[in-house]
């Protein structure tokens, strides 16, 4: 538990460092997902950082490619590649593309993605393949809440329930914000949990920063043997840095060189370090 909190802190630290080095990128969503990524990569996923193509590995599809910094920071901390490489985020010739790109060879990237609304369908294809092969590994898909305004996501939601893909677990980053403002003002999503439930999903609503709640929800998802599971994870965009928290203007912004030490300091203090 303490260890996972520590991991989440380190993930946030590297998100800020890499974004500052890049000079652009998406701080808000990346910071908001750090706790969930800490639980996934340091507790929940069966994976081998030294053998990224291990056939028995659980797979994680990042549908919201713009929060690549949280994935990169987590993968580096898990040992997929050196943390120094995180400072090459978004640079020419770098393996750390602005949105994940498999062809650039970064280990641990399951899908090149960045056009919203596509990831859940791909994750569903993976889950269906595993069902056919009777491979008991699991597929996870990280979705944004604003992304759910894309109609094709609901095609995938319908199909996953139809095919009883209990080996599929979606996580919705429910921070309530998108580029133009609050999701409810831009295009209402509520009642969101009811929508997923009525489409046939095992739907769990959790606090996306509460390590224990996150762990328990993933465990519950694994117990479900009929329906796919979605965790609607209530998060704070920019969590950990008060300047960024809940400010939609930080959706697609990076800290400046001047801001970085202040932000890192705040992170440390919040952890009581």
């Amino acid at each position, binding site marked *: 538990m303490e260890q996972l909190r520590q991991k989440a802190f380190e993930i946030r630290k590297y998100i800020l460092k890499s974004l500052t080095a890049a000079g652009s990128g998406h701080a808000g969503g990346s910071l908001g997902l750090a706790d969930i990524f800490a639980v996934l990569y340091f507790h929940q996923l069966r994976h081998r950082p030294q053998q990224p193509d291990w056939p028995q590995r659980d797979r994680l599809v990042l549908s919201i490619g713009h929060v690549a910094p949280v994935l990169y920071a987590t993968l580096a901390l898990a040992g997929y590649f050196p943390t120094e490489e995180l400072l090459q985020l978004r640079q020419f010739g770098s393996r750390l593309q602005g949105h994940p790109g498999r062809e650039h060879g970064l280990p641990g990237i399951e899908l090149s993605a960045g*056009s919203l609304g596509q990831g859940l*369908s*791909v994750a569903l*294809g993976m889950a269906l393949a595993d069902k056919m092969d009777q491979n008991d590994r699991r597929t996870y898909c990280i979705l944004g809440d604003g992304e759910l305004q894309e*109609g094709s996501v609901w*095609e995938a939601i319908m199909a996953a329930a139809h*095919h009883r893909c209990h080996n599929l677990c979606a996580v919705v980053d429910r921070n309530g914000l998108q580029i133009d403002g609050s999701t409810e003002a831009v295009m209402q999503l509520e009642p969101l949990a009811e929508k997923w439930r009525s489409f046939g999903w095992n739907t769990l609503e959790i606090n996306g920063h509460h390590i224990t709640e996150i762990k328990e929800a993933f465990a519950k998802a694994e117990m479900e043997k009929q329906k796919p599971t979605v965790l609607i994870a209530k998060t704070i965009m920019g969590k950990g840095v008060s300047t960024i928290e809940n400010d939609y203007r930080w959706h697609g912004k990076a800290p400046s060189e001047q801001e970085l030490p202040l932000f890192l300091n705040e992170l440390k203090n919040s952890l009581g370090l």
Partner: protein
Amino acid sequence: MNEFQNKGDKASRTGFGEGVKLAATKHKQLVGLGVDITQSVGMHFFAEAFPERFLSLGIAEQNAIGVAAGLALSGKIPVFATYGVFAAHRAADQIRISLCYNNLHAIIGGAHAGISVGPDGATHQALEDIACMRVLPNMTVISPCDATQASLAVQQAVESLTGPVYIRFGREAVPDFTDEQQSFEIGKAQRLRAGKNLTIIATGHMVWEALQAAKMLEKSGIAAAVINMHTIKPLDEKACLQAARETGRIVTVEEHQITGGLGAAVAECCSSHAPVPILRLGINDSFGESGKPEELMQKHGLNSEGISAAITRWLNGELLP
């Protein structure tokens, strides 16, 4: 010179479907995806033979392409077919990012290509699919000339390609005239007829019509070579340049807009290395409409008479704007 005989009319969608089933017999990792019009696009041969490897996904093409990507990332070879208008356009972004950017081995069948679809009219007649698919990096685009080659094309696409593939085929029964034994190789054009005055480069069902047109032209003393350009991407550039250099004139024929399709691809290729006059025959910036296939082909000059007449007028300088 080879004379091609019609072995009997057969729809290329049937050939495609038979090819999928044959490929599936050999390749256990082949998975079929259906979006409600399974029989109409020839996928029922596979679905009936291998129900455990057939996934019904409902009328939801965008999701189907994503599912295909996920299957391909899991070692499967997904084959997804629907009407070309829906395959190439409804799911265009999914094809671009989930399939092409990830460079995944998946076969997309685009059925009901061209106006020969007939009475269903404009919404169901794919006339821009080649254009949209051939600009995508990593994509292979195939437009087989008959049922025999539609079957060979999908089998070869499953067996020897490694990236995304778009195969377009027609609805109507049309002459099935190629030989199964004849060497069909994706990316390699077939010169079906020699001639010194010009070369007709055709694709899809138009290859048969081009062969008949060449016979008509012969009677008026025009020796037209005919090339079956079954693969539009990667284009057999050597064959195009050879045709340009040897015959000095090229005519392209396709059941597709004359912008963006086969004609455009041939013109792009020749303009760099062997610029010769090129007449592009096809659909000229219009939608299709209802009618009997033969009525529509007649209207757009896409039968042998129309092709030979256009060529004659072109040679006489009558098509100048």
